[in-house]
């Protein structure tokens, strides 16, 4: 069971969280403006990274907040967790882990 650090509540067991897919998949401000192809990519195309993956979690049985995390998919180790709206922590954070 993973140990996940909620940016609001601190480290908590995985049982309290729900996984919510890849992070930073941006919904167009006005979906009418985007092409069918772009919308299809928004709906279905995910990066499926081997390595550090930006993903969303929800502290469902806690503060109920969604947040973002960087997790290495080869080790399941978290590099960082950060709040929605904050930029993805820069490469220096990843390099310094």
């Amino acid at each position, binding site marked *: 069971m993973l140990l996940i650090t909620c940016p609001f509540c601190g480290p908590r067991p995985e049982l309290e969280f729900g996984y919510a897919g890849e992070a930073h998949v941006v919904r167009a401000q006005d*979906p*009418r403006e985007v092409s069918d192809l772009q919308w299809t990519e928004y*709906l279905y195309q995910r990066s499926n990274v081997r390595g550090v993956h930006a993903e969303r979690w*929800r502290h469902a049985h806690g503060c109920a907040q969604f947040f973002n995390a960087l997790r290495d998919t*080869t080790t399941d180790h978290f590099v960082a967790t950060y709040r929605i709206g904050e930029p993805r922590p820069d490469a220096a954070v990843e390099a310094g882990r």
Partner: protein
Amino acid sequence: MSQNFRLPTGGRVNRAKTINFTFDGRRMSGLEGDTLASALLANGEHLAGRSFKYHRPRGILSAGAEEPNALVGVGADEGHYSPNLRATQVELFEGLVAESQNRSPSLRYDWAGVNNLIWRFIPAGFYYKTFMWPRGAWTKFFEPRIRAMAGLGRAPRAPDATTYAQRYAHCDVLVVGAGPAGLAAALAAVQGGQRVILCDEQNELGGSLLSETDAAIDGIPAVRWLSETIAQLRSAGSVQILTRTTAFGYFPHNMLGLVERLTDHLPGAASGPRERLWQVRAKQVVLAAGEIERPLVFPDNDRPGIMLAGAARIYASRYGVKPGQRAVIVTAHDSAYRAALALYQAGVGIAAIADVRANPQGGWVDLARKAGLPVRAGCTITGTSGRLRVTGADLAPLAADGTVGASERVSCDLLLMSGGFTPSVHLFSQSRGKLVYDEALGAFVPGAPAEDCWVAGACRGVSLLSEVLADGFAKGASAARAAGGGPVPARSFATTQAPATGGGFAGALPHGKNPASVRAFVDFQNDSTAKDIKLAISEGLRSIEHIKRYTTTGMATDQGKISNMNALGIATDVLARPIAQIGTTTFRMPYTPTTFGVFAGYARGDLFDTVRRTPVHHWAQAQGAVFEDVSLWKRARYFPLPGEDMHQAVARECRAVRAAAGIFDASTLGKIEVVGPDAAEFLNRMYVNAWSKLKPGRLRYGLLLREDGFILDDGVIGRMSDECFHVTTTTGGAARVLTMMEDYRQTEFPELKVWLTSTTEQWAVIALQGPKAREILAPFVEGADISHAAMPHMSVVECRVAGVPARLFRVSFTGELGFEINVPADYGRAVWEAIFAAGQPAGLVAYGTETMHVLRAEKGYIIVGQETDGTVTPDDAGLSWAIGKAKPDFVGKRALARAGMGEGVQRKQLVGLLTDDPQVVLEEGAQLVADPAQPPPMTMLGHVTSSYWSATLNRSMALALVKNGRARIGETLHVPMPGRVIRVTITGPVFYDAEGIKLDG
């Protein structure tokens, strides 16, 4: 039998305490401290089971967790029966009942042993090959026979009568394995001020020290050092010691799964749980899991009486058992000499020590020679004799160029082998730590760790006792420091210097025979041989993972503890590539087989899953309702009167609702309170409907899509005020919908001022439906006019019902005049009972979900998840009217505009079906075709989504999704069923009161 092979002295068994047990119904005795294996050996029994594929007689090979052969079923009755236990780990207790496995009718006479005679026809990959060809041979011929003969133990025939416990724990340092390395690590971690958990799979701590009869540590005999060390750890107060506890899995973030066996070793009916699952989160982990001796691969290396050399020494020195009278030892490693000496001292005749190395040297070899043991250097083994027990070994000179000379039969009743040792890197590998091949050691050892863990002692290839102790202490100190403890000065341990050991062999020994004519077993449990591995490679398999699967080597319950390195050794020979390049297979949890019970823990029977009950549940139960599970809820399905079956009850309930009135518990509906200045705008963006213009006091049917345009959920939504909406969802969709709403609220529309609160549990919902609903309800209502003029269909009012504050909806899911009375959950039953009693003169009946389904289907109302399956758009379901066309955006809107989602595409659409024969009720899920005579594969046009007998129509009816269905209304289609074809006519989806007159009573 009377323990004829028990030595007069020695060992850790309690000679004052005789233990009686039975094996295959035969009464035997052993001593307290014995395992089942040591007790069998004390009685001269080596034959312990039959092999998996060929039913060859097999004996006890090892003395520990790695045992592949001696698998037994244990348990005095079926409720306590466990199959596939390793006799080497089953502790003896008074009254133990054990049986051998995989034999029929008895261990000594086994009919399926005929497989042993036709073995040439069961090669590697047999399953894959027969599965492919000849067609049908697999299912008709091979599989039934193989299922009858192969396999290991049998499943218990009764439910598990024991209970299991589960616990979470945290510690600074978890030490896995309490041999010398683990004990030293625990000492150091305690000295560093850390909270320690020390676990070991055996019944007592000590590991290899339990059979250490020669060495002294820091000037005292090893066994005394052991007891003093344990006492020191126990008195420290910061160490939790868990014996009989196997660390079976190493999970991310330093969480390890341990199984503590609590009662299996106790006689009689034990109280308390049988096992306890520990989920331990450790700051630092020290792995001191030891090593496993490798067998040698030579022709007929599997007869009973053939044993690992180290195991034989353990039986002699720890259990005081003589495993035979006359031993031949075949080895590639010095440690076998130590075993030979120990057995020699125990009175076992040593017929020969055959060393495949040309010039074995070193302390143990010298000691053996000095003791006069017959050492044959440069000697291999080409075969064995004996059926239920080994009777002889064929020894032959092995030249430096690998040629094998003429063999000589040496008689023996015990054949010991040692190919060296394989470090137990299982847990380290599970933790995703990298394994590296150590050329000098001839084994994979832990490299860079992936978790906060340290590896000590034999499981990283350290073998000399003094070095093992020092290594364990150093790793324990490092772990303590890393966990935040103070520095611990290095410590050395003075041991009487036992000679160092070396050597080792991986692969198959040369035997000079025609390879096609011999069987040299690599994986004893799965009966795979050196020849099988060579065959797999010759058939083109190169990856060790593929070779493993094709030959099933390493895939038995022992997970290749004994076989992996020899399989690699053979592969490296044939492929002419170094082992380091071939790599090793992945280790997976569990380390040893683990009961399902310990994973289930408390979650059995009533506690298996959460059960949600409505406020009206117990009333319904008292009325004799039959319940069904809807997500976690228990819902009343129908309320049969005495003598009624479901069909009759549902027909009566349906007629009553249409003719008079029915009362229905809708409390399970999901409810979400959406509040805030931007509540309407938020719902605009979530649901397909337009909400801005909905006036307070009005209801609207809401349809929710996923972003891909397909229907996710639906429900009636009431506007209570400008800034407050009462949203209802489907019973099963409540949590999903709230999560989705929260997701958009938090991440896509954070600028909206809106708050979401689940109120599912707070409201009881009583649906009152039927032409007499208003007259029954009216006397209970205070503070509202519920006349048709004041309160039309799809309106909501706040008032009091039966004296209780209520949100009263005028809404219908039946097609009749209807109300849904929302009252605080605690008052739900009282209000329900009051209305139910008052409605009796008018003919009010309680109805359940089955009647609800029929009534709504008569009206063509969909149920999400029944008429929809995640690929249905609003238009498919005939719900385009719900969409707020003027809205710039809502979840799913953009996807609906994609090609393939709308106009010009023949999508499946919701329609009604009427069978030609009105008595025939279609099966839900049945397929629809145009031409029933078309040969398969037929062109399927759609499928039945809902199908019922309608008491209202006095005939059957169904809903279906049919390709281009609305254009096909009036057409005849066919439903092919076994033995017959049913003709149906496509209709519109509304069967009852298409004009909606009844909604107003």
